[in-house]
């Protein structure tokens, strides 16, 4: 089932609504197009679970995978492989793999492998909704480094557990509130990149925005200063599709103010 997100523009009395910068506009357009059309859009996921033993696709498989082309995914002597009617083939981790017009991705996690399976989308997906752009919700603050290194497993945007290192505490003034947000460095698989990320809740969580919170990335400005553009706050994938696990709110990362910026959470049933 594909959940629909309505495109909603809310009027925010007294807010500093500004023209949306081209970069943010382009980013939103790309993201919307990806959500709507990509074969591995979160909306297309029909299965997300641990690979224990083997995962069977096609007739005889569990209901979610029964319409897929016949295949078996398992860890064999020669590594992770997919056996299809045309023979065996190796399967890379962290990469999209085709199975007919289906897709799957195996993500390594500390406890083993997680598998996400995507079926062709049959329902139209509406645009994600965004609050109007708010220039006063782009804040600059300092990232205080932690007194000692801390690395832990956290759930990323895509619900996959990943080892992230504590980046520190980001302090800034958001509207009328002095805030302190715990930030982690989340690595981007397959590259030297990492994103200093906060997952936060605010006064809109559970109402206009997704209840467990939203992700936002800090942009370094040098000298320990970072910019947090709350207009770029995004929902975890569980907001689009209940098959993805949701990250728990990060302790302490709850703002009292209403962050009327970034991605909304509205479904057709609301």
């Amino acid at each position, binding site marked *: 089932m594909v959940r629909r997100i309505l495109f909603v523009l809310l009027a925010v009395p007294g807010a500093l609504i500004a023209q949306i910068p*081209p*970069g943010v506009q*382009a*980013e939103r357009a*790309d*993201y919307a*197009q*990806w*959500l*709507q*059309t*990509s074969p591995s859009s979160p909306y297309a996921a029909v299965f997300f679970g641990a690979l224990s033993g083997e995962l069977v696709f096609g007739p005889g498989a569990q209901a979610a995978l029964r319409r897929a082309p016949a295949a078996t995914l398992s860890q064999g*002597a*020669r*590594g*992770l*492989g*997919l056996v299809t009617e045309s023979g065996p*083939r*190796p*399967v*890379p*981790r*962290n*990469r*999209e*793999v*085709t199975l007919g017009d289906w897709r799957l*991705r195996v*993500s*390594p996690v500390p406890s083993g492998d997680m598998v996400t399976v995507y079926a062709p989308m049959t329902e139209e997906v509406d645009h994600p909704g965004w609050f109007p752009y708010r220039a006063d919700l782009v804040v600059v603050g300092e990232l205080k480094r932690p007194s000692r*290194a801390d690395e832990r497993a956290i759930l*990323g*945007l*895509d619900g996959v557990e990943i080892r992230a*290192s504590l980046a520190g505490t980001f302090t800034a003034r958001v509207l009328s509130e002095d805030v302190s947000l715990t930030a982690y460095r989340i690595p*981007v*698989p*397959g*590259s*030297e*990149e*990492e*994103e*200093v990320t906060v997952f936060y809740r605010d006064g809109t969580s559970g109402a206009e925005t997704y209840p467990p919170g939203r992700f936002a*990335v*800090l*942009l*370094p*400005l*040098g000298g320990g200063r970072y910019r947090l553009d709350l207009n770029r706050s995004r929902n975890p994938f569980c907001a689009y599709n209940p098959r993805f696990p949701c990250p728990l709110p990060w302790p302490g990362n709850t703002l009292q103010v209403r962050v009327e910026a970034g991605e909304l959470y509205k479904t057709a049933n609301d």
Partner: protein
Amino acid sequence: MTRASFRVLATLCLGAVAGCGGDAQTTPLDGLAGSWRAQVDVAGGPLRFQVELSEGPPSGVLCNGGTCEPFSAVQLLPGDSVLLEIGDYAAAIRASVTPDSLVGFYRNVGNRGPRTIPFRASRGSWPAEPPPAELTGRWDAILTPDGTPSPRVLELRATERGLEGTIIANSGDSGLFWGGVRDGRFDMSHFDGSFVYMLTGALDGDTLRGTFHAGLTSQRPFVAVRSTGAPHLKAPTEIVSADTTSTFTWDFPDLDGNFVTNEDERFRDKVVIVEIFGTWCPTCHDSAPTLGEIYDRFRDRGLEIVGLAYEVTGDPEVDGPLVRRFADKFGIEYPLLLAGVNDDDSARDTQPQLQGPIAFPTMIFIDTSGRVRRVQAGFYGPALGEVHEELERELIDFADQLLKEAGR
């Protein structure tokens, strides 16, 4: 992770982002031909590179200093915009066109959705900003000196284009970086459509201090001191080790689906070099000509080479044509086999006789008894100049030595 490491991006059409040119018109570039000073704007500042566009069939190249790679497609789109596709990495630059500027975005797609970074270009070429002599040379660097330290070697040199060099890790180099020095600070970049890397910094007495930038937001500080010649990185022969007590084996399909094994007549009683490579790995493109040179020199004396390709999808219908194109590009006459996917676990699972992280490329030298005699992890490409030439000579000499031992 260096460019010899894994890339996540599939070599698939970037339909959702770039449009793959499906609705594009192949129209002339109408005055866009020429040199463009290009940059993507990452958090640490402008990351500079050069774009050269040509008339005729629209085409162009993306240059990092003296190294240029062609765009997979250059198309003028309706609405006065241009699309520069970097097909190998499912990436594209789309920009609005005015007579003297291109303004738009670079885009590619990762596991968590698209990445969008502002791009702009103006007419002309970036000026050469030569570095002072005290900046050039070899530096031993530690990335994130007060975090989890990670050793690198910085190789910096002055060229007619300004400052060029590369970053070397245990598993290979990161390709050619280009840049210059202004007001006592240097910046140098490597942009290939997948990797968005920049190194910035300045001399502080005898120490080089700066930041390694990756992508839009990643920044890791580094400190470097001038190399004394003492080893700072693991030697390429120490990264991967092999079981030398038994015959090194392989059994994988070639591009026609026929299995090729170490027991085939072709390899019997031969000195053999097995190369673990991938068409997605730029360093493997650097090593291919060296292997070709070795093959040309020694095949008549009884040397064979086999390439084990670890590709992006694991699907022969997708990976096969990429490997065939790689063979055609370098005129490779030895067999290339589809061994697996470029996933660290997969490579290890299919090579149980190797221990340690598998670097791309890795060359395994095997004597006529079938035993491993040397494992060369990573490769120093032409961006390293004399270091590359020295390694090339070393590998040629080692192959020659194995042949001489066998009386060839």
